[in-house]
């Protein structure tokens, strides 16, 4: 849940709760206050009536007012006289409905006779008033809440916008793209601080990263020079006529080892370069052409292993990628499919709009299917294999957003490059 929604919801529920109970309490307080008023008014009436009784000697007093009624009865005629204030309901004929009344009953003495006097006062109008006040109050409260909510949401949204912008930019940030990392300025101190810290942090990471990259690249390059010297000295040594077979073999082994080292170094450097996206220029590439030229390059081996090449170049596809990487990508896959093929096996290449499938005959691998693309994962213990060929394939696919999958089915190894997402 977004912070804003959360705070808004909290705010809303608390205000609703408070105002609900507030208005109920308000209603009863108002009610109470009005009753008090009526009571005092009735008390006044009471003294009036007593006075009038004393002066006018009339036994029943009925005021002209519809909302008021006074009944005077001698006390002995009343079975159970109730005293004090009461609420009661009367049926009012000319309005044909029940109307609430406030009642004041008291006993007064006049000419030695005790009278039970009831004063009734209609509550209809006051009740209407209370309801109206109550409704107006409630409406007002809701108006206030809505207005507040809208204001809070609006201002918060504006302030949080900066925050969301920051989040979006961080999400899309790629240290390899070398683009400027700038964030919006905010009038909220916290967000401004956050952005400043983030900018400082990315700057530092960028610097560290490029330092590290530079270091790795320089180190790799610097290693090549001493390796060149070792290799050349040994190549010269190999030409020497006076080495016996054992010495020759020792030199050759050392030579091959240092050669492997330099090859490994070169390949790792290539992987790093692909990873760092240092092959920016892309061209429209025809994979069929590249695969054909690779097959031509390897025709002797295909012939030698009696491999049956089956091409299904049904649909003409073009891909946009760096030509050098495209060549490495397909040559690695084709070489792989030839080297791990069985004698007289099949090499099937299918291209379509969405994928390229390179399949070759062979027996099932002992290693995990998913780990086949991992660096230095070799299924053979062949020391000359760098175990980086398929890692390079995967890295290239990753950089261009293609998916590469391995599967084994019907004694065929399948390598599928899926670029449907990309198109």
């Amino acid at each position, binding site marked *: 849940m977004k912070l804003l929604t959360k705070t808004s919801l909290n705010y809303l529920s608390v205000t609703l709760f408070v105002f609900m109970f507030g208005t109920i309490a308000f209603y009863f307080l108002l009610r109470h206050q009005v009753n008090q008023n009526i009571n005092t008014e009735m008390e006044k009436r009471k003294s009036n009536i007593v006075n009038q009784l004393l002066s006018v000697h009339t036994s029943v007093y009925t005021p002209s007012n519809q909302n008021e009624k006074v009944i005077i009865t001698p006390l002995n005629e009343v079975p159970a006289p109730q005293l004090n204030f009461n609420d009661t309901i009367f049926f009012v004929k000319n309005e044909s409905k029940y109307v609430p009344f406030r009642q004041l009953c008291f006993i007064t003495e006049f000419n030695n006779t005790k009278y039970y006097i009831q004063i009734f006062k209609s509550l209809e109008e006051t009740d209407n008033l209370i309801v109206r006040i109550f409704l107006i109050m409630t409406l007002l409260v809701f108006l206030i809440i809505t207005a507040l909510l809208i204001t809070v949401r609006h201002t918060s949204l504006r302030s949080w916008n900066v925050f969301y912008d920051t989040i979006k930019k961080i999400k899309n940030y790629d240290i390899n793209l070398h683009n400027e990392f700038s964030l919006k300025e905010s009038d909220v101190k916290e967000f401004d601080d956050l952005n400043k810290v983030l900018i400082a942090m990315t700057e530092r990471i960028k610097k560290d990263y490029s330092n590290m990259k530079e270091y790795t690249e320089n180190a790799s*390059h*610097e290693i*090549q*020079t001493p*390796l*060149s*010297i*070792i*290799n*050349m*000295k040994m*190549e*010269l040594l*190999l*030409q020497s006529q006076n080495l016996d*077979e054992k010495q*020759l*073999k020792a*030199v*050759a*082994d050392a*030579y*091959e080892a240092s*050669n*492997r080292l*330099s*090859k490994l170094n*070169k*390949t790792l*450097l*290539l992987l790093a370069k692909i990873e760092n996206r240092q*092959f920016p220029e892309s061209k429209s590439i025809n994979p069929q052409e590249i695969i054909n030229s690779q097959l*031509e*390059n*390897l*025709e*002797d*081996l295909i012939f*030698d292993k009696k491999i049956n090449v089956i091409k299904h170049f049904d649909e003409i596809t073009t891909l946009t990628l760096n030509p*050098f990487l495209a060549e*490495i990508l397909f*040559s*690695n896959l084709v*070489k*792989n499919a030839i*080297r791990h093929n069985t004698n007289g096996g099949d090499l099937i290449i299918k291209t379509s709009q969405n994928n390229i499938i390179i399949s070759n005959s062979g027996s099932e691998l002992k290693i995990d299917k998913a780990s086949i693309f991992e660096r230095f994962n070799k299924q*053979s213990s*062949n020391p*000359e*294999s*760098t175990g*980086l*060929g398929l890692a*390079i394939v995967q890295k290239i696919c990753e950089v261009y957003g293609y998916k590469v999958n391995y599967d084994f089915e019907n004694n065929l190894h399948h390598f599928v490059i899926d670029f449907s997402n990309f198109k």
Partner: protein
Amino acid sequence: MKILIVEDEKSLTDSVVEYLSEEGHICEAVYNFNDAIEKLEFYDYDCIVVDINLPDGSGLDIIRHVKKASKSSGIIIISARNSLENRIEGIEIGADNYLTKPFHLAELNAHLKSINRRINFNGNEHIIYNEIKILLSEHAVFVNDKEVKLTKKEFELLVFFVSNKNKVITKSGLAEHLWGDYMDMADSFDFLYTHIKNLRGKLLKEGCTDYIKTVYGVGYKFDIS
């Protein structure tokens, strides 16, 4: 051939000079930019082998200098930096080849031979060696005047062997010549074995002497002794 080597790493230069001198080339070595420019002012070379990163300048500027003086020398760049841009720039300003360190001396030698043919024979040279005749531009090989059908790779292999006669050529040297830098060695050794077997078979079938000797555990040698 008269060759100038411009490379600041002295012991590397020594190895190059030693290998190339044995091949009958006249080699001169300089270790920095200024000496190279000075040498080029006074002498002509058939070929210049130049490192790009020199302590006091860029090898690319040496190439520009040579090209400006419109000398016909062949140029081979050797560089530790295997960067595509450098390679493209180098070739664009007139270098014949670009070798990334570490490279095999046999490879450098083969490139020099090819430059030699380009300069002195317009590339139309026939390599004739005893019963073997190689027509480079036609990609044709004859043994005792009978044509031997070789595949592209077998042809490249034979030319490489002939360019490095009597030298022990390591497996990786051959493999890199045929397949370039980025081939897994395990692949290339398997493949190499196949190619050599086929090449040898085709030559022997036409009655050619078995020049290609296996040096056990090391590589191969085109042995004429």
